[in-house]
């Protein structure tokens, strides 16, 4: 089912976590709430889940206004950053929890739990306790537990935030495939722009309790609505009022029309990508991304003088 937050405001004491936020999540989509810490992204998710009550505004799931309904009757599946595993229960009992609460027949519960453990690749670990699992396994268990009750929406609060980089990458790809299989409307909260772009079809960028922009990963990157989005969804150089992406800087060994002089400060080889840090004569630093091939042709060295020109630049009107 689709989800809508309409004019939601949430305060904690004098602090405004969400300031009149409206967001629409299309049915069946995988949407990321992206923003720095304190942007209100987790609060918005918790308001949708019913774990926080907004001061004003409404939450709709499907066509139904659920603003005044407790979390337990909203039909949401929630996954927390630190797993929230039931420590005294086995993996099996964790996954079965929502079903046993609903007093489903034992045979049905067993079938469903089997099916889910297979889906999250934990078949062999049903009798283990959460403390005997790795972080990645715990989070897959938590996901199976949330899916067991067939939620109409799935809410993931920084689900991979506590995992190491390699496991995080694996689980992202896995979540993407899972969503293609299960099709449940999903919201994932993250502060990692790469994660949001890799996983989500739609991204909502939040900052300071407000929505900055909503769009596909491509739209956000190519047509950022403002400075904040431009600098949050990828690295950027700021030259006066103009913004240039590091891969949009042309580097030449000879001066050309409109180019300026800069000195090579550092060259970092990252495999296919080569990062060059330059400093202009006015002391300004520039970050440039080149392919390995481009870098080899230029034969850049520390202390070398080069000439740079933006291939594409963005200017935001004031305000």
């Amino acid at each position, binding site marked *: 089912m689709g989800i809508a937050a309409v004019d939601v405001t949430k305060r904690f004491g004098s602090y405004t976590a969400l300031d009149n936020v409206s967001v629409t999540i299309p049915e069946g989509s995988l949407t990321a709430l992206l923003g720095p810490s304190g942007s209100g992204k987790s609060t918005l998710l918790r308001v949708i889940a019913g774990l926080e009550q907004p001061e004003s505004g409404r939450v709709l799931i499907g066509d139904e206004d659920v603003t005044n309904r407790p979390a*337990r009757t909203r039909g*949401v599946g929630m996954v927390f950053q630190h797993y929230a595993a039931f*420590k005294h229960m086995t993996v099996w009992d964790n996954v079965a929890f929502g079903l046993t609460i609903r007093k489903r027949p034992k045979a049905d519960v067993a079938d469903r739990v089997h099916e889910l453990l297979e889906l999250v690749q934990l078949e062999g670990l049903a009798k283990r306790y959460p403390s005997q699992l790795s972080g990645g396994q715990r989070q897959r268990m938590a996901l199976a537990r949330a899916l067991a009750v067939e939620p109409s929406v799935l809410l993931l609060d920084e689900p991979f935030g506590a995992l190491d980089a390699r496991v995080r990458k694996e689980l992202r790809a896995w979540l993407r495939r899972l969503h293609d299989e299960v099709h449940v409307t999903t919201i994932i909260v993250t502060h990692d722009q790469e994660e949001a772009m890799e996983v989500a079809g739609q991204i909502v960028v939040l900052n300071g309790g407000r929505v900055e922009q909503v769009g596909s990963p491509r739209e956000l990157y190519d047509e950022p609505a403002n400075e904040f989005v431009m600098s949050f969804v990828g690295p950027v150089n700021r030259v006066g009022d103009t913004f240039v992406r590091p891969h949009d800087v042309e580097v030449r060994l000879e001066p050309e029309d409109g180019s300026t002089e800069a000195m090579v400060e550092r060259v970092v080889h990252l495999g296919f990508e080569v990062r060059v840090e330059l400093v202009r004569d006015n002391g300004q630093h520039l970050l440039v991304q080149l392919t390995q091939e481009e870098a080899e042709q230029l034969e850049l060295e520390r202390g070398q003088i080069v000439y740079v020109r933006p291939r594409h630049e963005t200017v935001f009107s004031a305000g």
Partner: protein
Amino acid sequence: MPKYLLRFGALGYLSLLLLVPVGFVFYRAFEHGLGPAWDAVSSQQAVHALELTLLMAAIAVPANTIFGVILALALVRSRFPGRGLVNAIVDLPLALSPVVVGLALFLLYGRGGWLGGLADHGIKILFAVPGMVLATMFVSLPFVVREVVPVLREIGTEQEQAAETLGASPFQTFWRITLPAIRWAVAYGVVLTTARAIGEFGAVSVVSGKIQGRTETLPLYVQAQFEQFDIQGAYAASVILALIAVATVVGLRVIHPREEES
């Protein structure tokens, strides 16, 4: 060398202060064999004292366990005005001399006290079991609360929130998530509460009136026998209290490692 000195010093201190005196109680109780010791504790008066002591514990322990858990939940999970004051009051029985507790109950329920009128309506509090139960509950109140509060803080609310989103009612969440998570802390608190309830002397002594065969608990019985020069009886009854203490210590040792593990 200082290591051995430290070990020897610690053991010597414990022996001198604790092991030797308690050992002597056992020694004197069984000095003339098992027979006299058994006779002493199976007298009608001694059996009644033991029964009364167990009755005190049977009422005070469940009451303080249930209210202790509720109080701990209120202190950790909710914000209400006066929370700091409640938190401090819970510790009062630990700080207050039990005799003062007894005296306070005496003043409240005695003649001229606020609730002194109850006696005129046939509700006897002082010099009777109700007063003794109240005194026992007063002194054994803090233990469950103090054990459960830090564990509740540590487990946080995420598991409870997860249960809520999975459809659990507040009661189901408490019964299936919160209670299992704090179970060892509750057990630890129960053992401490029981030990305190059974061993209480001061407060119960003041409110009971120490009527032989009527309002005499085991600790009161020990003192009475001692004062009447029935040394054998006093020691034999002391052994029962000491055995309960040993069982308590063993119980705590069994529970404690599990508490750390979870």
